[in-house]
């Protein structure tokens, strides 16, 4: 399968990096911020840079929506995976439209409430993965896989 791993740099990207034993067996590309930590983590990977800051930033949401359309049309991934934050939103909606499957992984430090990104992508997420039992009542269709750490 061809995978699109999309999200903010920092802790969100760390969550996706921790899935390496899964994604390294597949064709893949990344969409994240062009920041120092991301560059050092993704040496040798195929990376598209997206616009930031994204949190509650409408202008960059619009720019990232255009970017998502362009990238997804070109790459045609089978699966889009994100752990947040907001850049996931256009990729999940447009990805869905173009026939990709989507998995949203909620971050470890959310134990009892949804993130804004989680709420926004929930309707188009094929799978929602959480790391705490309480989160399955926050996201009824979520599956709890326990700690990623």
């Amino acid at each position, binding site marked *: 399968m061809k995978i699109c791993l999309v999200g903010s740099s920092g802790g969100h990207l*760390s969550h996706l990096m921790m899935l390496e*034993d899964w994604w390294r067996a597949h064709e893949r590309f990344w969409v994240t911020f062009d920041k*120092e930590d991301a560059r050092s983590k993704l040496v040798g990977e195929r990376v598209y840079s997206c616009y930031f800051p994204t949190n509650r930033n409408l202008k960059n949401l619009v720019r990232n929506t255009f970017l998502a359309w362009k990238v997804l049309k070109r790459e045609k991934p089978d699966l889009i995976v994100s752990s947040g934050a907001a850049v996931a939103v256009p990729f999940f909606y447009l990805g869905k439209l173009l026939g990709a499957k989507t998995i949203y992984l909620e971050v*470890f*430090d959310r*134990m009892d409430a949804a993130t804004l990104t989680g709420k926004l992508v929930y309707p188009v997420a094929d799978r929602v993965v959480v790391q705490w039992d309480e989160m399955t009542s926050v996201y009824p269709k979520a599956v709890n896989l326990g700690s990623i750490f």
Partner: protein
Amino acid sequence: MILVTVGTHEQPFNRLLEAVDSIAASQTSHERWIVQYGFSSYQLQSCQGYRFVPADQMETYLKEARIVITHGGPASFMELVSMGKTPIVVPRQACFDEHVNDHQVDFTRQVAERIGGIIPIYNIDDLPAAVEDFDLRSAQVSSGFVSHHAAFVASFTALADQLVGSK
């Protein structure tokens, strides 16, 4: 060696840096302090500072460090807990303009209660004693947390294969 890391969040964490700098200045043991200071503006005097540390170098430092002091981001300290290495966790607080809200404080509190294996510091004045008495404090908070990483990735792999088909 003592490692301090404030992660990648784009607000300063000067409160922590000032505290570690003063501890480093007053120590008699000449232990080396390495500080990843990110977007902080405080000028370190007694520690070796780096704005960012490349991922592979960070891994080496984490393994070598006798004590690791981190902010309250899970990616910065949970792996240490799963390795049985007790991090000193100083959550960023909104009232000092270190983060947009107090979610790091809430999260740190939850980890300390549910999992253990960390030394949480909510009042920066408590940091010197935590460093001084590290071995004792570390023994007091030992956790039974074992790494769940491999099991998580195996479950995730099965979930993705089932969703997309294992091509």
